[in-house]
């Protein structure tokens, strides 16, 4: 389900763009090619978790890479088409799902496996975003998506948007997204400190050079950077609306609260409520015991 929803949304956008086009009788070739690529990528979407061997994982990586490259090449071919930004956004979404699928596959697969294929197109995607869309007021959406990814090129791109976009709304989204992106890396550093055996996996995911640079910043340095960005997001861009509800300011506040009160080493705030049998429940009743808290939802 989680894969099909964004896909459907994308198809709707593509359709609207087409029907809103005054030259509707001559459908834009990008729209056609894009829809074909989307359809095919949905049909062969590989499941990393099912890949049992290095060979199968390599194939899964290459298949996803192929579609990412196809999206990016389409955007390169039609730089002036209004749909090009959406196509690049889809490329970023696909890269992100590749990154998270690999991380999920670590639950079952013990081998670290590089997720970036030989013909990785992240760099080209970012170059096109900079060349054709840096000053667009619509580039905020792709900035927002980058928080869910892990690639070093996103960091550079988000910094550039914060510096050079003429639109306050876009700068605000980039600022918050960069903070969230870096915080996810700070969390990885903490997990690595606890379990040094994760080194190989993080190097495979992020690239040795990028992971080294994060390690040099360290827990403290990286957290300070995130805090500064979140404070900036709250004070300069507080009113900026997020694409899926709420504001940059509200979200920045939630993230700061998480950093200060919900991180490893902090004393847990009490939880009070009623349990399944309507009996009063307090987390603090479990002092002197080891507690596993699991937050979940029906998906």
């Amino acid at each position: 389900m989680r894969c099909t929803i964004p896909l459907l949304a994308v198809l709707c956008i593509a359709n609207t763009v087409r029907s809103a086009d005054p030259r509707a009788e001559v459908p834009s070739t990008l729209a056609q090619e894009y829809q074909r690529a989307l359809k095919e990528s949905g049909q062969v979407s590989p499941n990393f978790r099912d890949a049992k061997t290095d060979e199968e994982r390599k194939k899964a990586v290459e298949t996803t890479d192929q579609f990412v490259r196809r999206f990016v090449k389409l955007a390169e071919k039609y730089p002036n088409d209004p749909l090009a930004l959406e196509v690049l956004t889809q490329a970023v979404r696909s890269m992100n799902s590749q990154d998270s699928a690999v991380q999920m596959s670590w639950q079952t697969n013990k081998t670290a496996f590089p997720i970036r294929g030989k013909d990785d197109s992240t760099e080209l995607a970012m170059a096109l975003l900079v060349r054709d869309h840096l000053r667009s007021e619509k580039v905020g959406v792709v900035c927002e998506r980058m928080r869910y990814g892990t690639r070093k090129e996103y960091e550079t791109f988000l910094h550039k948007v914060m510096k050079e976009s003429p639109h306050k709304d876009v700068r605000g989204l980039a600022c918050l997204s960069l903070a969230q992106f870096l915080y996810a890396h700070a969390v990885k550093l903490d997990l690595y400190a606890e379990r040094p055996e994760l080194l190989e996996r993080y190097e495979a995911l992020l690239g040795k050079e990028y992971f080294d640079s994060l390690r040099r910043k360290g827990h403290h340095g990286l957290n300070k950077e995130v805090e500064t960005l979140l404070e900036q997001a709250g004070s300069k861009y507080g009113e900026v609306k997020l694409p899926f509800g709420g504001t940059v300011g509200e979200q920045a506040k939630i993230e700061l609260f998480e950093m200060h009160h919900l991180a490893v080493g902090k004393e847990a705030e009490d939880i009070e409520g009623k349990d399944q049998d309507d009996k009063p429940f307090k987390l603090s009743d479990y002092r002197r015991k080891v507690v596993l808290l699991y937050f979940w939802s029906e998906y």
Partner: protein
Amino acid sequence: MNIFDREPKKLKEIMEKEKITWRSIASQAVTSRWNAGTPTYYVIDPNGVIRYKWVGSPGEKVIDTALEKLLHEEENKTKKPAR
């Protein structure tokens, strides 16, 4: 312990369906305060301090190892009380 983000009356129904035996509460307020939009795990030690946190499952083995480590720590403390 489970913290579920939907309406409380559905909690028991879901617990029966999924055969969950843990003590559970349903509270949107708690899940949003804890910024838990995706499945999140916290391990809290006997002093109420957060010792482990995973956003998304790290796998059963990792969780078990962490819990065992803390339980051992506790056992050793009781065996050898500080002078």
